[in-house]
């Protein structure tokens, strides 16, 4: 049956129109019409501006009639548009009174805040025409991708191994050897690699539309162009970055990204998006009009009493996340990425901002965070907070969670880094971190699954640089090395930067293996920084956000050069996936509460059962009792991890196993490859079942199980 309300009632300059539907906001295809709907609390008038694709001047501007406005929403249907070949924007009229928070300017053409496809930056790095009156151009999209039987995977969060990666940097270098470098399609070509590595979740650094030319400039050091490569600066919250799609020039980025996600899912790999809801690319009062500022400044931004922009993001403005309408936009955006893109989870950049009220004060029960925790569509979606902001709010362990939110565990990173380089004052904290940070996450029913453990992330040194540089080397970023974190807890192993000394290089590789061993045997969700598995370097740059070159791009030749590191990563990831005892959801008892003969988790020193016995707080060991982690009635193995971060070798007395079992060596980072790690399940029986010698700055991982007959 045909609808009776899809007939035009008005006409304007040859175009047929009708009162639109206020909901949903954005541009929606309805029959042979497109429904345009935009909200502004304070605008007095609105005009729809239509362009043919890429044309500098609009072909028509249609004012919204009085009868096209309901409440504070302008909505209108336009019939018979060749919608694939049009771009649309709005002119908003209203008060210009910055002190009151209003910055309406009807000379500006504004992008729809709900635009699902944005043109204007279709291919990476192609200089736009800066004289164009409309830079980021909303387009209409047909959301009818055929997912067949695909759905978000809903992998239990405690089973994830997250791989944090950047769409462009991952395959942009020639050494990636893909047909579509730097794009979603390029990632699809590397799916076999991701499977071989063993990760089951990719966390994509921002893929919402942003402008790589924002603050772009030549480097004062050597003149190469600096871009906004990372994209932590949203133009739109509903549209994928066109230039990340090899089909972006045809406006087909939506399908290309959906197809990537479908293929990743088919290979058991989840997709988490890094989303930036704390600010937009419009900057402060000196920034450009892209959308929000001109659509409804006072609604979208947190403003000071004088009408200036609060800057809790460090990027000029702060999105007014707990304004009810902005909150709705954020919820709509997240639901859209889940329903239409089948995304599995989100990592929220500077998420502490999402808990600030409209005056910037932190709230005890922020409505936005509560809505997201209880949202029906996001009910199985992973929600991960970067639980701090640039305004000094640090909420690691205290992020309002309703038992739903996980966090990037920044304390894990800091403590483990210090321990790795031989800091003698951190062991007590390291023990908390390895056991799942009960001090941070045992409350509110959060559990171990709330702790995303990481040692490296996009912010800061790569793992190779963490063991190769004492200090950051960001000169090429053009800010006299002032940008980037100063407190890196890194150690260069005896020489600053790359070197030929085999001893130093052996130690660096060993430290990398120590790091990944700790990460994969710690309770919590491990996150690996893309490239660390092949010893990728950024040459000491710990803030490579602007480096669109070999500093930021993965160098895939490292796979061969650092084959031992890659092999170690593969096997330790596989080991984690093979042992349920490493992947608890909730915190452990540290006692034998089921009377199984051993505690579920126990700490040891160089003497078994004596955690206090050690050297300068640089030696410790822990044991996991596999009987507490059964799969279909079959107990897991015992696992014992001896950590010696001291610069001398130490003997560790081993806890005695149940009679039928014996200790086997899975990994020993002191050994050169291939004797550093075995294939999981193929561990070698230990000759001496009473004691092991753990080399200087080394880790040994043992498995307690029945010896093969």
């Amino acid at each position, binding site marked *: 049956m045909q609808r009776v309300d899809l007939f035009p009632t008005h006409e304007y300059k040859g175009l047929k129109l009708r009162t639109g539907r206020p909901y949903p906001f954005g541009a929606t295809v309805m029959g042979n019409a497109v429904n345009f709907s935009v909200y502004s609390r304070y605008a007095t008038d609105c005009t729809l501006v239509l362009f043919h694709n890429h044309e500098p001047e609009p072909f028509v501007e249609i004012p919204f009639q009085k009868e096209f406005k309901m409440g504070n929403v302008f909505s209108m249907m336009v019939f018979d548009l*060749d*919608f*694939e*070949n049009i771009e649309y924007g709005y002119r908003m009229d209203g008060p210009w009174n910055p002190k009151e928070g209003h910055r309406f300017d009807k000379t500006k053409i504004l992008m729809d805040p709900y635009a699902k496809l944005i043109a204007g930056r279709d291919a990476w790095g192609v200089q736009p025409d800066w004289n164009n009156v409309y830079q980021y151009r909303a387009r209409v999209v*047909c959301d*009818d*991708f*055929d997912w067949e039987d695909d759905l978000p995977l809903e992998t239990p969060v405690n089973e994830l191994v997250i791989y944090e990666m950047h769409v462009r940097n991952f395959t942009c270098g020639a050494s990636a050897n893909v047909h*579509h470098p730097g794009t*979603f*399609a390029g990632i*699809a070509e590397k799916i076999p690699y991701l499977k071989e590595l063993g990760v089951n979740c990719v966390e994509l650094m921002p893929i919402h539309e942003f402008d790589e030319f924002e603050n772009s400039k030549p480097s004062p050091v050597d003149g190469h162009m600096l871009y906004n490569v990372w994209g932590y600066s949203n133009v739109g919250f509903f549209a994928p970055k066109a230039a990340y799609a*090899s*089909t972006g020039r*045809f*406006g*087909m980025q939506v*399908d*290309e990204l*959906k*197809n990537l996600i*479908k*293929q990743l899912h088919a290979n058991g790999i989840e997709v988490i998006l890094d989303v930036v809801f704390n600010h937009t690319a419009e900057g402060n009062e000196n920034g450009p009009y892209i959308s929000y500022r001109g659509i409804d400044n006072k609604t979208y931004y947190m403003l000071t009493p004088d009408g200036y922009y609060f800057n809790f993001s460090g990027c000029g403005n702060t999105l007014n996340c707990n304004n009810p309408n902005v909150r709705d936009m954020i919820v709509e955006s997240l639901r859209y990425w889940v329903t239409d893109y089948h995304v599995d989870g989100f990592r929220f950049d500077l998420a502490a901002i999402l808990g600030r009220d409209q005056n910037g004060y932190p709230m005890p029960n922020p409505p936005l965070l509560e809505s997201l925790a209880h949202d029906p569509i996001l009910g199985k979606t992973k929600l991960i907070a970067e639980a701090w902001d640039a305004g000094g709010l640090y909420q690691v362990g205290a992020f309002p969670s309703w038992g739903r939110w996980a966090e990037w565990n920044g304390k894990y990173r800091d403590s483990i880094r210090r321990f790795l380089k031989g800091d003698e004052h951190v062991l007590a904290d390291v023990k908390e971190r390895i056991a799942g940070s009960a001090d941070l996450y045992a409350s509110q029913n959060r559990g171990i699954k709330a702790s995303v453990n990481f040692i490296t992330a996009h912010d800061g040194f790569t793992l190779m640089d963490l063991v190769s540089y004492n200090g950051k080397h960001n000169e090429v970023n053009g800010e006299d090395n002032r940008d980037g974190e100063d407190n890196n807890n890194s150690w260069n192993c005896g020489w600053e930067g790359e070197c030929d000394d085999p001893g130093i290089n052996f130690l660096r590789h060993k430290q990398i293996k120590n790091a990944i061993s700790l990460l994969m045997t710690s309770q919590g969700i491990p996150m690996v920084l893309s490239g660390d598995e092949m010893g990728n370097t950024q040459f000491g740059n710990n803030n490579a956000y602007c480096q669109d070159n070999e500093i930021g791009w993965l160098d895939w030749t490292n796979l061969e050069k650092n084959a031992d590191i890659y092999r170690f990563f593969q096997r330790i990831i596989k080991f984690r996936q093979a042992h349920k005892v490493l992947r608890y959801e909730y915190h452990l008892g540290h006692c034998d509460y089921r009377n199984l003969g051993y505690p579920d988790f126990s700490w040891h020193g160089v003497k078994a059962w004596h955690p206090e016995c050690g050297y300068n707080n640089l030696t410790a060991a822990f044991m996991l009792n596999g009987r507490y982690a059964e799969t279909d009635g079959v107990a897991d193995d015992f696992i014992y991890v001896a950590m010696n971060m001291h610069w001398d070798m130490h003997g560790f007395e081993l806890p005695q196993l149940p009679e039928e079992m014996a200790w086997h060596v899975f990994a020993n980072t002191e050994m050169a490859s291939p004797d550093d790690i075995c294939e999981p399940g193929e561990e070698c029986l230990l000759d001496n079942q009473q004691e092991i010698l753990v080399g200087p700055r080394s880790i040994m991982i043992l498995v307690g199980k029945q010896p093969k007959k």
Partner: protein
Amino acid sequence: MNAEVHKVGPVLDASSSKDEQQAILAILDQNKDVILDLSECTYVSSAGLRVMLYTYKVAASNGLNLYLVGVSKEVREVMSITGFEHFFKYFDTVEACQSQI
């Protein structure tokens, strides 16, 4: 053989998609398979891909087939990247298609 050839123009995009779709559906209405000849088509837009997939699904739901002929390397590449490729059977020429189906 109960198949009819339909030749697509040089561009299959939003402007031509309506007419092309009607023409293909008209063949399916006669209970015939469709051999879609794209050998002279150099550009298929998002709307064009949707015409192909939509008519394919109409065909399949009526127990009919829609075959693609002469798809250029560029168009095939776009279809692959955007997830449209695997639905279809491909032939180099109309004759090859007719002899094999």
